[in-house]
């Protein structure tokens, strides 16, 4: 399953860091952060609880960049 979230992040390198952090979160199959459109596309693994995974993604992203926001 794929979902797109609106995000807020100030610098491009931070967006890359967020992408890495999201990718490493368990339950996430693939994640792409688009700095230009301020969007995050997340592909979840089968049978995952999307909202729980996203909470985890947000937590991991906050770790690498405190200023970021994901609108879940």
């Amino acid at each position, binding site marked *: 399953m794929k979902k797109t979230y609106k995000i807020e992040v*100030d*610098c*491009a*390198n931070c967006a*890359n*860091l967020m992408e890495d952090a999201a990718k490493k979160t368990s339950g996430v199959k693939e994640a*792409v952060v*688009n*700095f*230009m*459109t*301020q*969007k995050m*596309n997340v592909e979840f693994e089968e049978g995952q609880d999307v909202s729980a995974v996203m909470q985890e993604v947000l937590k991991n992203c906050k*770790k*690498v960049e*405190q*200023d970021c926001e994901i609108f879940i």
Partner: protein
Amino acid sequence: MNKKQKKMLGRIILSAILIVVLEQLPIAGMLRFGLFLVPYLIIGYDILIKAFNGIRNKQVFDENFLMAVATIGAMMVGIFGEGDYTEAIAVMLFYQVGELFQSYAVGKSRKNISELMDIRPDYANVERNGKLERVDPDEVGIGSVIIVQPGEKVPLDGVIIEGESSLNTSALTGESLPREAVIGDEIISGCINMTSVLKIQTTKEFGESTVSKILDLVENASSRKSKSEDFISKFAKVYTPLVCYSALALAIIPPLVRMLGMGLSPDWTDWIYRALTFLVISCPCALVISIPLSFFAGIGGASKEGILVKGSNYMETLSKTKYVVFDKTGTLTQGVFEVNGIHHNEMEDSKLIEYAALVESASSHPISKSLQKAYGKEIDRSRVTDTKEISGNGITAKVDGIEVAAGNAKLMNRLNVKYIDCHHVGTIIHMAINGVYAGHIIISDIIKPHSAEAIRSLKKAGIEKAVMLTGDAKAVAESVAKSLGMDEVYSELLPGDKVSKVEELLNIKSEKAKLAFVGDGINDAPVLSRADIGIAMGAMGSDAAIEAADVVLMDDNPIKIAKAIKISRKCIRIVYQNIVFAIGIKFIVLVLGALGIANMWLAIFADVGVTIIAVLNAIRVLFVKKL
């Protein structure tokens, strides 16, 4: 400017004033340090907090850490040196100014580009109880009737049921010539109604409408990352830690060598200062921001011209295109066959056409359609009996009880009818009536007015080979190819042959030269996906083409292909400029910093100044009108 940026501006101004004031005061020692700490904290507190959190989260090497270490270090140098704290604060100050400017410039350009592509209609007019109501296009179902007033955007795809008007399609196609639309015409969302009120019955939901599809495509395009972007993000990951360790080495090794090896004074402060300069330069932001921004601007600029590039990676491939393979029908020619001549007939032209149209009436072949079009009247199928289709030859049938045969030379031979060959190029239909030759009809496709020009401008842009593939007869194909100036032509191909021909060409070309295939999106999807880059033309409304191709031209003007290639080259050129420029300047300043020539001011320029210049350079990609 948003709230965050305004707050930052306030902090910058406040601390700048404080520094200037404090500089005038004749104080020294720890009091001086304490007073200078105030503007330092005002300007840099968030950086310090972030750096601290970064260490706690084991994300040490980010720019906040670098700035924190560099400025704290510079303050220390001040305490042990001559009490000069201005530089440390100024470094932080300029860093913040740079960040602010960068965030403003990037935000602004992001917005501009997005606005360029904003063809999203805000509302649809629906008539309810005799009154016009504005509703969200999402709420309008299939088959509803919407009203579009002059000056408004068409919100959903549909068919005109009342009124006629001119439409401005420039937001979709980049074509400024208005298009006339009358009752019964299909109309696509995103056009602007120019002259009079139209009533439209919708045929698609908003989510499925052309405008949503295009927006979706363009917005997602920058998510498909190019090789340059991958390179930069990998580079950034290595670069920052590398510079940090070098800075550490620079701070420790030379003084130790001086002290122990050469017996000189270690000059700790000097070397630490140099190391701090290093840290300031180590932020990879200029690179990381300017590359995706260049691609984004390129995709935005292209879409303004009616060229949709589906990803940054395709932008890159497109710029390396050296071979362009065209499908003939619908791409270089209009794909509408018309009767172009009738020769050697004894009966009247119109009578012969009538017979031909009737005989072919059962066939769905384009030829039969063009005959029917030339005939211009309703076909009365009951006049036709005994229709026999001889595959690859033609058709025989009885019309009003008279034996009529229509087909190629093979059919005439088969029926033992002596025919006269034609020297014109096109599809020749020989006619025999009651076993006697009755002349022939020539049907040919018309070359698009801009095709020859398109090939010329491709050649000018450095395309090595323009190849044409077609299912048509050899004579037709070669005459078209010659008039257009094609390098190679392959004719009489079945759809499957086109794939294998493209594969052959893929094999003989060098690895670096890329091959683009241009088709009209109808039944050439396999070839579109097999080529390095698939370009579909005339995609307005054709979902299959948008799906299969990597680059979609919104109208069917072949001249746009050369334009697309030129835009992609400009985009890639600017990407490379930015990579070389940013890495180059940083490297030079790193070396100068290590030698003690560059001070922190120059280092700040290497960080912030380079970013700003790179961002401005990236914006240049947007200007593609004159390419």
